[in-house]
């Protein structure tokens, strides 16, 4: 099977298995966390670092992270792209110097992302009965499926809904421009704000909160996981009534052990006595 077909088939299978129909997918982070064993984070990272998935083969755990960014559509495509790599098992050794670029894997992941986010049947449903597809329709598809105009154009072309020339024209349209032209700038800004916020991996954070309540995880560790200050985190926890119970062990550190006065003089006297 060629990479495109594999990517498309896997996206369709993913939608079928998780009963997603042809509907647009809302919050992709929560969707991945709820349908797979993968824990997802949105992180504040360096420029040009879009996404990464990491796996501990011994414990069979997978974490997926994407960058915080004011470009919500790009973030969604990164999430879907990384999800494809995890599903296809495209793993590299962690300590490789170069991030291996295997073209086949990349094409397959891109195709998966496109078919997952903007499925052909879904596009046809939205555009049913239109004699021709115009820029307002492109805007509707972008707004509804939350994909970039470039991704939407490729999907529309593949679905046979627009010709190659129109696709080429629309590839360079920007989402903010469509939003401004067709009146959904406020929604776009809200999406951008959300994509630009960090998010801790939910399962790990929940476990770490439990660990905090059991005195094995520090407040600082929780704060680091959430990317907030200890002060604001403590306020959140207090408000939620999450306060670790007082520890049962009273002397946890050597310096806390109280000084006890004791008298050994009797022992010396006893030692002087011959055993009976």
């Amino acid at each position, binding site marked *: 099977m060629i990479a495109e077909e594999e990517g498309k088939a896997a996206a369709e299978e993913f939608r079928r298995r998780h009963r997603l129909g042809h509907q647009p997918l809302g919050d992709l982070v929560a969707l991945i966390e709820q349908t797979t064993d993968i824990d997802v984070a949105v992180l504040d990272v360096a420029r040009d*670092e879009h*996404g990464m998935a990491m796996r501990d083969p011994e414990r069979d755990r997978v974490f997926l992270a994407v960058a915080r960014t004011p470009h919500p559509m790009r973030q969604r495509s990164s999430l879907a792209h990384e999800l494809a790599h*995890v599903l296809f098992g495209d793993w590299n050794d962690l300590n490789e110097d170069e991030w291996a670029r295997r073209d086949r894997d990349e094409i397959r992941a891109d195709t998966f992302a496109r078919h997952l986010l903007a499925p052909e049947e879904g596009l046809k449903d939205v555009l049913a009965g239109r004699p021709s597809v115009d820029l307002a329709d492109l805007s509707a598809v972008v707004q509804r499926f939350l994909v970039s105009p470039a991704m939407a154009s490729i999907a529309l072309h593949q679905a046979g809904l627009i010709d190659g020339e129109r696709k080429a024209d629309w590839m360079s349209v920007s989402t903010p421009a469509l939003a401004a032209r067709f009146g959904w700038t406020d929604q776009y800004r809200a999406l951008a704000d959300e994509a630009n916020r960090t998010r801790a991996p939910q399962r790990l954070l929940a*476990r770490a909160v439990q*660990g905090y309540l059991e005195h094995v*995880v*520090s407040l*600082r560790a929780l704060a*680091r996981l959430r990317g907030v200050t200890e002060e604001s985190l403590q306020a959140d926890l207090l408000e939620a009534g999450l306060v670790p119970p007082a520890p049962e062990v009273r002397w946890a550190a050597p310096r806390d052990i109280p000084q006890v006065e004791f008298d050994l003089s009797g022992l010396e006297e006893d030692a002087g006595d011959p055993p009976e």
Partner: protein
Amino acid sequence: MTNSIGEAIERAVTAAKMSQRALANATEISQPTLSRIISGERAAKLPEIMAIAWATGATVAELTGASRVSDRAQCVARATNDASMSHIREALLHFLELDAYLDDQAIPSPA
């Protein structure tokens, strides 16, 4: 080995967005001592490592290099312009380390 602990501590301090002074306050280890531990001039004692781990939110295994997670972990990444991916890589490694630590501490996953 000692110096790799120093480097690990330095990374943990950066990740926790702390200053060396804040770490000294939180751990009750004097700043000169901390600075000698970080530079590798003085070996860190285990109680000191534990205090530093608690204060920075790192695990002891991360600081001592006792964990093998980073040796066996595998990844797949998407970057442009030859980004080094070091930030995102470190963050994900920390997640795996913390997850392994929570396993060791028998903290269950929420249902």
